[in-house]
């Protein structure tokens, strides 16, 4: 983080609007302030993104079914702007605010048969780990025009960053499991048992399919191969999806299962478990689960982009531009790729039917996991040969 702050401070000093001190103590203070501001900014941006991910889902659902989708909700003031107001209304731009605001205004009934303490804790647990993983994500990098040194633009460049993300993001499943358990009702309980089984199974596929990337990173660079930043920065030439396509497919499927998205959404399958784990939840707590689901989609897309799609690199074999504008362009590029992935995830949801629970388990243990292990062994052999040669 201090490197990141130093880069920002030097950049600011270079603009000539004023001089910030660069001695270590002042940098530590500035760094702490910056961290707080950026952390709040990232959380706000992501939560806003969640709201609009819901809009994306509703619109894509409508398009896939030959409908128009939300196109009426508006502010009276918005219609004062002649063309823009009409377009924004037609795109459903205000709809997420109405959807979210509705949840605040409802009465909040708490069923008498629930375990209150866990019932209240569960929605927070579902949301918090996903937000924590944001800390570890490099959003872009800054290349110093003079020295050519690349600095990660991330809140915390921890050494085993990728292990942290994989570990913490799956903690979100505790929230959903606790929700089903504390509801003291059989359908949520059934759904939460399914989530438990599903998350544990697919976690294996996720880790096994990422390990070839770590091997490749270790082979290509001297930097720490477990750090997110070095995983992305070594993709400036070959993106990982070109080097390990099988891993990418397995990771993508396992990611869908981990997020509980269709075709793996057995935890929420309305036909056999009523509403899934959040049957007993209403209003704002339901909203938290709902936002958590979309937060997982956003984070999943960003993580997939970082692992496989070259992160902030614009195109394969295209060197990154120096300076601030290069960083901004990289950030936009990352967000664009993540958006395309989100679109793909939503698109898949409105295309495929749901798997049965036994099919989900079958797919994981008898298909994806063996392929992932063989894939890992193959890359192990290949990387060893390259290293020996």
């Amino acid at each position, binding site marked *: 983080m201090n490197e990141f702050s130093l880069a920002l401070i030097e950049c600011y000093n270079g603009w000539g609007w004023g001089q910030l001190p660069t001695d270590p103590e002042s940098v530590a203070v500035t760094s702490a302030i910056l961290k707080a501001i950026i952390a709040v900014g990232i959380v706000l941006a992501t939560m806003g993104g969640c709201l609009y991910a819901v809009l994306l889902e509703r619109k894509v659902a409508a398009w*896939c*079914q030959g409908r128009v989708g939300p*196109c009426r909700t508006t502010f009276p003031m918005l219609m004062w702007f002649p063309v823009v107001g009409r377009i924004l209304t037609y795109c459903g731009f205000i709809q997420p605010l109405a959807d979210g605001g509705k949840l605040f205004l409802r009465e909040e009934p708490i069923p008498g048969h629930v375990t209150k303490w866990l019932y209240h804790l569960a929605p927070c647990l579902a949301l918090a780990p996903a937000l924590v993983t944001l800390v570890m994500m490099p959003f872009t990098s800054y290349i110093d025009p003079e020295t050519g040194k690349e600095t990660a633009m991330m809140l915390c460049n921890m050494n085993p960053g990728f292990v942290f993300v994989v570990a913490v993001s799956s903690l979100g499943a505790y929230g959903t499991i606790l929700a089903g358990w504390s509801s003291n009702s059989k359908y949520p309980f059934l759904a939460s048992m399914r989530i438990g089984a599903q998350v544990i199974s697919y976690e294996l596929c996720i880790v096994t399919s990422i390990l070839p990337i770590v091997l490749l990173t270790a082979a290509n660079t001297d930097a720490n191969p477990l750090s997110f930043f070095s995983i992305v920065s070594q993709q400036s030439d070959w993106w990982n999806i070109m080097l390990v396509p099988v891993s990418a497919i397995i990771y993508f499927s396992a990611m869908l299962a981990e997020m509980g998205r269709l075709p793996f959404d057995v935890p929420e399958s309305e036909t056999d478990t009523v509403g899934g784990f959040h049957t007993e939840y209403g209003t704002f707590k339901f909203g938290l689960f709902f936002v958590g689901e979309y937060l997982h989609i956003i984070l999943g897309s960003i993580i997939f982009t970082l692992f496989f799609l070259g992160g902030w690199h614009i195109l394969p074999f295209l060197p990154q531009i120096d300076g601030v504008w290069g960083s901004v362009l990289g950030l936009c590029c990352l967000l664009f790729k993540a958006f395309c992935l989100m679109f793909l995830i939503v698109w*898949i949801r409105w*295309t495929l039917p749901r798997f049965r629970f036994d099919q989900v388990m079958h797919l994981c243990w008898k298909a994806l996991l063996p392929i992932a292990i063989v894939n890992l062994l193959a890359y192990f052999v290949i990387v060893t040969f390259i290293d020996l040669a």
Partner: protein
Amino acid sequence: MSFQQYKVLKRKPLRWWEKLYLPQILMGLKTTFGIMIRKPVTLKYPEERPVIPKGYRGVPTLVKDQEGREKCVSCQLCEFVCPAKAIRVTPGEVDPDSPHARVQEKAPAEFQINMLRCIYCGMCQEVCPESAIHLQDIYSLNGYSRESLVLNKEQLYKIGGTLPDKELKWAKKDNAVAEKH
């Protein structure tokens, strides 16, 4: 008991690439993408309305001819044929001073259609010898009370308006008489 003959269709085993599911998933994505870029099939209702086909059976109304004459002669056939018993006609006489008195003797004093009973079967229109009752293309009639949906004569004529006769038989007769003399 007769022996039922049947044919057994052989299912081909899946090829290896079919077992991967991925080609089929891609085909599915292609299908939904095709629908995505197509024009939506739904209408944004109050602003955009469907085109009502000819012969649509909407709200039954009374109509006048192009001279403003009430076509109904209160024969009450519609009242008798109505399977839902929605129509009630009170027969009356045409005022002798009216310009149409030469053409018709009777007209309804009161004509009520209960739109809550009406099943829009169109039998009244079919049975009417004078083509005086006509099912319009109005499909969203509504009101705030049961009473407001029992439409009386004025309301029925107001909605119905004018349905011109293809030929005015009395005018034709007048012309024939004029030619003879």
